[in-house]
Structure formats: structure tokens, C-alpha cells
């Protein structure tokens, strides 16, 4: 994205050419990928022509001027249908843009289309029975999951039919598809980026953020998105730092914690080795790395059930009573579970969140960032429900969400960047967790790691 923005600003390439090239790639590849629900071809080309005129006139250009972006289909777009990946909203056309959509447009970005997703963002596999399940571009032969819920964002950016995309993350939905699709993505601190105009899954756990091909691109895209928004009372008034300026390439002197029990010890052997190698690479650049154990983190599953399920049920309650048949079977059942969580259980979950947050804050009082695998496993085949890790069998769903979910409960910023490939050529992700509102250090570490490695530069054969 950075390179594209630079080439557009210096008139080396026209925004019209860039948008048309992406539309051509969508036409060629997305029949199989199924990453888009709605392609905004006409409006994108019109915006590109206006962007081209602005370049020619020599006016001030935004940091994303003329660069196409994809929008997960839960971001409201004025005049463009927003389905949430569901049949229930198949024909719903919002009357205004989500705040981040408007802010990206203000920075010059051009919305290319609305991206596929797990229905109403309630699933870490990225399945969709209504619009087709996106195909992971890293395996052209086997239909593998992209991870979810932002599966269309993962597929489209990995396949090069979108330079960068918006995802959303309630239990890992930015970091899981970033991990499984070989992308860089960041879930900012809760309150850093406005959720106004974003269809909710669970209000107190939802985070929105970018998914791109590099940490530097994430910094470029996050900057205009971040900051206080009167439409979202949970956003912070803290000033937004210059994320691009934070990318010094240096980690010397940084104190890094390597999350051991629960995380490394619960990961597949390839994921564990890749994350340990990443920690060594950073250590080799002058960071200090020490093992850390979060003893309360195993409570995250119970806390998440207590909080997420009833919040999701509360949003969907009326539709579950009147239009239940229109949901996909998996999401309908998951949503109904929330009806049986009591008020006392919900508050017990919120008290567990306090416990978890205190523990992560205590670890980060002595350390700058924490490292962990993003997911315990690589992309599995669509329809596969169980996976072996070591000598044990685990549900795929739990194995995807286990390492990301704790930081939705605590609200800490967390990124995922590629850190290697399995023997089968499937990407693996390194998770980098930082202090509240310190996305700059998370991105700095991610970018420094990407200057040492080339994992993020590799492309799937399908993208050729």
C-alpha cells in the first residue's frame, strides 16, 4: 500500500489503472476465492477518476490517495448494501458510512467492495453458507478455511485482489485470518478505533482494524482510522501517535516476554518452533527475551462464554424469535446459547476479565511486548472439525481462537504477522501483544521482524 500510494502521488501510476487492475483480478480469481460479497466497481472507478484529477491538479493528497481497500461486509456503507454475511440483511442499504469508512475515504482510500465473512462475525473458521466459504489462496487444490471471521479480507489480500482490508476482531477475527492467510493484521486497543457504524457481535469485545501485507502497511492504514469519535462513546481521547514514525527498525533494548505455558505449550510443533525462532531473531537484534507464564489465561474461555454469548444474543434476540430460519445453522445455534447465560454469570465473566487484564497489565509493567503464536494450527480443510496437536485431538474452532481470545477480553493491542510456513506450505502467525494504546511499539516490533525475514513477502501461487 505504501508503494502504491507513493507511485500514485508521483504520477507513476494512475488510480484508474490501479482500480481497474484490481477489478480485473477480482473478475479472474474471485469466482473461486469467493472473497467479495459486493464489488463496488462503478463507484470505485468514479472515485479513481476523481483521485486521478486531484493528482493532476497538484492538490494536497491524503496518505492513502487512490489506494483501493476492501471492507468487511459489516461496515456500514452509505448507499451500498451491508449484509453482515447474512441472508437477514441481504438487501439492507445503510444511510451513512461507518466512521472508519468515512475516515479512510477522507485519507484518499477507494472502497473496492464488501468482503465475505463468517455470518455476523460469529465464527473463527470464516465459513459462510449464504455467500460461499472463501477459499484460502495458499492451497489451490484443497478448499481450506481462511480463518475468521474476516475470511474474505484474508483471502482477498493474500490473493492480491485487494491491497489492504478492514477486518474486525471479537475473539481473533483479524489475527486468525492474518495467521492462516500469511498476512499482517492488528487488533488495536479497545477504544483506539471507533466501532460506530460497524455491525456488532459483542459490544464490549469488538475491535476493528486493518489487514495488510506488512506491518508498515498496517501502520499506514491504521493512522487515519484511529482516534476519538463522538459517535462511539468508548473511544479514547488520547492523541494518536505517528505510527509510521515509530517504525524505526530497531528493537535494541526492548524487553520482550515469550508466553510459554498455555500458548507455546499448547501450539502445534511447527507453530511453536516458528515463534521461538522469531523470538531468537529479535533477541539477535538486541532485544531481551524472557519466558512469561500467564496463570489466569485459561479462564478466558469461561469468561468469553459469559460475556460474548449474551451480548450477541441481546443484539439478535428479536430476529431469533421471528426470523431464526434465515440464519446459518452454526450461527443460529451459537447465538441461542446466549439466551441461557444468567446476569450473575455475565458479571462473573466481567470479573474474570478484570482478573485477566490485571495479570496482562502486570506482565507488561516489566516488558514492552509479549510474543505468542497467533493460532495453534494452520489452515484446515473446510468441514474438518478436529485436529491433532501432538498426541491429542482438539476441536478446530477452539484451536483457532485459543491464543487470540484472551486479548479481546483484556482489550490490549495485538498484531499477527507471518513467521513461517508448515511443511505443507501453509502460513503461520506470530502474535505481538502490547500495552494499552501502545500500538506504536507493537507495530515497531512487527516491522523490525519483517525487516529481518521475508515471510510476509511470499505470495501464494494462486496470486500469480
Amino acid at each position, binding site marked *: 500500500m505504501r508503494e502504491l500510494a507513493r507511485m500514485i502521488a508521483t504520477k507513476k501510476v494512475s488510480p484508474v489503472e490501479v482500480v481497474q487492475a484490481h477489478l480485473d483480478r477480482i473478475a479472474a480469481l474471485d469466482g473461486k476465492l469467493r472473497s467479495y460479497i459486493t464489488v463496488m466497481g462503478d463507484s470505485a472507478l468514479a472515485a479513481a477518476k476523481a483521485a486521478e484529477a486531484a493528482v493532476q491538479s497538484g492538490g494536497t493528497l491524503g496518505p492513502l490517495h487512490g489506494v483501493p481497500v476492501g471492507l468487511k461486509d459489516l461496515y456500514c456503507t452509505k448507499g451500498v448494501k451491508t449484509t453482515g454475511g447474512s441472508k437477514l440483511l441481504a438487501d439492507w442499504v445503510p444511510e451513512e458510512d461507518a466512521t472508519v469508512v468515512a475516515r479512510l475515504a477522507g485519507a484518499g482510500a477507494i472502497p473496492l467492495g464488501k468482503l465475505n465473512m463468517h455470518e455476523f462475525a460469529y465464527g473463527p473458521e470464516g465459513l459462510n453458507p449464504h455467500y460461499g466459504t472463501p477459499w484460502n489462496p495458499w492451497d489451490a487444490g484443497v478448499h481450506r478455511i481462511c480463518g475468521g471471521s474476516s475470511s474474505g479480507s484474508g483471502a482477498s489480500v493474500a490473493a492480491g485482489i485487494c491491497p489492504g482490508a478492514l477486518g474486525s476482531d471479537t475473539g481473533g477475527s483479524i489475527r486468525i485470518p492474518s495467521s492462516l492467510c500469511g498476512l499482517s493484521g492488528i487488533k488495536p486497543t479497545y477504544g483506539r478505533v471507533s466501532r460506530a457504524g460497524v455491525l456488532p457481535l459483542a459490544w464490549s469485545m469488538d475491535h476493528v482494524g486493518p489487514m495488510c501485507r506488512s506491518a508498515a502497511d498496517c501502520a499506514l492504514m491504521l493512522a487515519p482510522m484511529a482516534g476519538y469519535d463522538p459517535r462511539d462513546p468508548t473511544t479514547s481521547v488520547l492523541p494518536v501517535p505517528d505510527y509510521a514514525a515509530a517504525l524505526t527498525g530497531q528493537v535494541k533494548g526492548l524487553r520482550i516476554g515469550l508466553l510459554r505455558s498455555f500458548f507455546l505449550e499448547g501450539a502445534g510443533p511447527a507453530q511453536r518452533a516458528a515463534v521461538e525462532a522469531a523470538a531468537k531473531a529479535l533477541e539477535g537484534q538486541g532485544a531481551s527475551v524472557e519466558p512469561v507464564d500467564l496463570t489466569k489465561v485459561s479462564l478466558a474461555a*469461561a469468561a468469553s462464554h*459469559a460475556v460474548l454469548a449474551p451480548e450477541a444474543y441481546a443484539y439478535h434476540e428479536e430476529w431469533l424469535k421471528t426470523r431464526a430460519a434465515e440464519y446459518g445453522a452454526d450461527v443460529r*445455534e451459537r447465538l441461542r446459547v446466549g*439466551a441461557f447465560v444468567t446476569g450473575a454469570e455475565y458479571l462473573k465473566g*466481567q*470479573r474474570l476479565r478484570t482478573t485477566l487484564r490485571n495479570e496482562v497489565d502486570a506482565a507488561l509493567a516489566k516488558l514492552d511486548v509479549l510474543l505468542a503464536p497467533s493460532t495453534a494450527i494452520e489452515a484446515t480443510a473446510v468441514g474438518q472439525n478436529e485436529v491433532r496437536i501432538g498426541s491429542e485431538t482438539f476441536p478446530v474452532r477452539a484451536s483457532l481462537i485459543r491464543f487470540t481470545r484472551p486479548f479481546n477480553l483484556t482489550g490490549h493491542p495485538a498484531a499477527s504477522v507471518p513467521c513461517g510456513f508448515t511443511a505443507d506450505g501453509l502460513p503461520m502467525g506470530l502474535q505481538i501483544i502490547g500495552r494499552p494504546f501502545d500500538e506504536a511499539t507493537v507495530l515497531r516490533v512487527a516491522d523490525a521482524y519483517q525487516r529481518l525475514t521475508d515471510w510476509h513477502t511470499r505470495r501464494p501461487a494462486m496470486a500469480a
Partner: protein
Amino acid sequence: MRYSPGMEKLTVDTLRTLATAQGLELSDAELASLLPLVEAGKSGLAAVRDIQPETEPASQFRIL
């Protein structure tokens, strides 16, 4: 809502009662499919007993 000791073992029938009280009309098959999920969630929470008494619920609704 707290369950009396007699209700602690959830069944399809108790789940149906709870669902109906909320206006959800679910079939026997739907209730049977939901039962293990609801039980798993409740037993996971019930197993957590070491929350410090002074721990207050998290609140995200504040300007930081």
C-alpha cells in the same frame, strides 16, 4: 436467575422452560443440540471459584 439445586442438572425439559420464558420456541431436536453447549458454558464458569472478593466487573465504558 439462579437455579435451585433441583435444577442444577439441566435437561431438555428445563431448557425448554427457560427458552419459552424468553419467548423462544425451540424444537426437541434444537434443545437437545443446545443442551451440551449450555452445560459446557455453565460448568466452565462454575469451575472458577478463585475470584478475589474485591474484584469488580470490567467496564469498558470509560474515556481513557
